[in-house]
């Protein structure tokens, strides 16, 4: 539905974020023990920011794959039609929550463009942008799940296993 370029861009960004997180943490750790490397102050900060960015960049995919933890022992006894209606309602809630993150994420970012991170001195507003970007991806994928529900009445799987 969303085209291959979209998938390619999203997964590439996720891989880059994970690689940056890994690289920064590795450099931060190793540089303490190898005297010929300059000691760095930004290792932890880059690790945290890249880690959070990877979470929000991949957030849309977790919705597409129905990977979130959920509980279906009550809804399992509902008739299929009722169940689909409930699931559509849930998609609506996911869209509403993502929309809220999008709107207030943009506002939070705008309010903090003048705040700078301690080590890198990056504007925090830019760092906060991961939340509205992730929220936008969740909106896109949430609509995708909704369309799948409406089209063939078959609910996508819910509840993976994360822990």
């Amino acid at each position, binding site marked *: 539905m969303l085209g291959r370029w979209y998938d390619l861009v999203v997964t590439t960004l996720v891989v880059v974020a994970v690689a940056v*997180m890994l690289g920064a*943490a590795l450099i931060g750790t190793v540089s303490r023990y190898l005297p010929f490397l300059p000691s760095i102050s930004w290792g932890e900060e880059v690790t945290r920011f890249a880690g959070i960015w990877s979470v929000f960049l991949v957030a849309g*995919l977790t919705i597409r794959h129905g990977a979130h*933890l959920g509980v*279906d022992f009550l*809804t399992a006894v509902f008739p299929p039609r009722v169940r689909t209606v409930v699931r559509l309602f849930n998609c609506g809630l996911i869209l509403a929550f993502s929309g*809220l993150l999008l709107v*207030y994420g943009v506002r939070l970012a705008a309010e903090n463009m003048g705040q700078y991170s301690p080590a890198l001195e990056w504007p925090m507003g830019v760092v906060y942008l991961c939340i509205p970007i992730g929220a936008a991806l969740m909106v896109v994928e949430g609509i995708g799940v909704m369309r799948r529900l409406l089209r063939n009445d078959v609910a996508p799987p819910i509840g993976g*296993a994360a822990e």
Partner: protein
Amino acid sequence: MTLFLFGLFVVLLLLELPVAFAIGVSSSVAVLFSERLPPTFIVSKIFAGLDSFPLMAIPFYVLAGNLMSEGRLTEKIVRLAIALVGHVRGGLAHVSIVSAAIFSGVSGSAAADTAAIGSIMIPSMKREGYGSDFAVCVVASACTMGPIIPPSILFIVYGSLVQVSVGQLFLAGFLPGLVMMVTLMAFAAVIARRRGHAPSHARFLIGRAVETLIGAGWALLVPVIIIGGIVGGWFTPTEAGVIAVVYALLISMLVLRTVRLAAVPRIFVESAMMTAIVMLILGPATVFGSLLIRDHFPGKILAGLGALTSNPTLSVFLMIGFVIAAGFVIDVMVLIIMLAYPFAEVAAHYGYDPIHFGLIFTLAATIGGITPPVGSLLFVACSIGRIGLTEASRAIWPFVVALVLVNALLIVFPALTTLVPRLFF
């Protein structure tokens, strides 16, 4: 406020809204209706909840675990376990339990352990005539050792929520993990005897044990690096996670050549998804948690418990009993995220050692992973064993009882949890 938050959360949860959004929606509604909190409170709290270096250990341990199982290190661990305990009656059940214990020392995630061990052990147990239900339940319950034996994602989450040392929690998990292993093996032996399962081979051969030990050497070095690095004061748990990832990449790509470079992006994305599922619960839960704190939730629990009993140990038994009971319908991670901080506050008030309480609380929550109808470890094992939850529900009870006994033992004997960390810290 507390009642409203929990009420809306539970209703949304029962309607199959994923946990992350059930928490997010209920706390957002509360914030939007409150007059004192601006709506940006939601977003800034979510960011603040995730912005922690100790939490970044989660993606690293997930990634390391995924690389190890892609790199087929699990098979080598299973071969070692067969050589060690395959000659005992009910051999493959013991092999599953010992493999899970060893793999727990490599990976940080119980669900990943269940997938890794289960996909090898459940089919082979079925092939050797063990019932599917027994095979599924042995593996699921054995993987509850995952969060207790270090490294452990649950300890990382608990440590960051309650502000206790993740390194100390890791060390504190050793003895309880061992007790769990022995107890589960004892219960499995009794069931295997009753069901008439034979050993998988005649006797213990030292040559085979040594040979498989060397074969599993690359995998066995992982816990040595992680724990050695933390105990030696070389790395923090997060840094040890990075080293574990780099080690797993080098071993699986260059030494064993079981993971190709082309597969790495896919493993990165899959690991990022597994991490995000935890983090997307943790972020909104920070909002939820801070609303509970504003409403003096720990004080309310304390008052409620005080009305029932004045005995601290009994109060802790009641709290742990509540966690185990809630675990039937709520899954492990959610229990930890929702209840760790308020319960730890209460336990601290009663004078409990924070590490000791961390262990008993985490074990109680972990039991929630195998108690039907909602338990992620049981789900994973059932889907590998291709049986329904109802069938598994009957065979899981003995193992639940075994783990509850261990939990009670840990409450009564704090030394089991505090001995090892005291040796090193």
